[in-house]
């Protein structure tokens, strides 16, 4: 089906804003009802919008699936590494070892901020990969 000019233009102009909103949800995760998982899904939905309006190949040029696979695996490794850092410095797995800021500001959660970013990138990469495979498959 040929896509019309309107959908093409609007999704083109909306795509960076949706990615930025996903990053906002991730980075304000300890202050607002967002968080790593929800922000990652919003990031993925931005890429789905481009997939639907301009085809999978155009989205794959921006985010190559080979690199996405590497990002997803490395983010999980990084998550484990941060947990092990808490184990080494303090007592428990995933213990906070960064200074706490003032309540209500952005840098107030210690390393929850970095943990949220790691989880968000991992979830986003995973859902984008699932959608690429399903959209490219031939079907029956």
């Amino acid at each position, binding site marked *: 089906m040929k896509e019309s000019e309107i959908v093409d233009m609007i999704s083109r102009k909306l795509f960076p804003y949706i990615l930025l909103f996903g990053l906002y949800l991730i980075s304000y995760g300890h202050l607002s009802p967002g968080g790593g998982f929800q922000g990652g899904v919003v990031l993925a939905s931005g890429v789905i919008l481009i997939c639907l309006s301009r085809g999978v190949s155009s989205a794959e040029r921006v985010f190559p699936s080979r690199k996405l696979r590497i990002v997803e695996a490395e983010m999980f490794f990084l998550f484990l590494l941060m947990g092990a850092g808490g184990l080494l410095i303090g007592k428990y797995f995933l213990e906070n070892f960064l200074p706490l800021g003032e309540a209500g500001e952005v840098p107030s959660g210690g390393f929850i901020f970095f943990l949220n970013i790691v989880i968000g990138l991992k979830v986003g990469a995973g859902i984008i990969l*699932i959608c690429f495979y399903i959209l490219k498959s031939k079907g*029956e």
Partner: protein
Amino acid sequence: MTEVILILLVIFGTLSLQFKKLLNAVICLAIFSLLSSLLFYYLHAPDVAIAEAAVGAGVATVLFVVIISKTRKEEK
């Protein structure tokens, strides 16, 4: 307020099982997850509402629709 939403949830849950055409069932499921998201939101649980809205109404609907378009359209 919550009673109205719960009654509507039951109605749409049964309707999505009743339809023979799978696309209509998917549309009913989208409204079902929208209503449950509104219920969580009204009961002061906005993070659950965001997760429900993002997964149930967005990504799950897209995946269902794409898979239906690649297989048969009617339920036997």
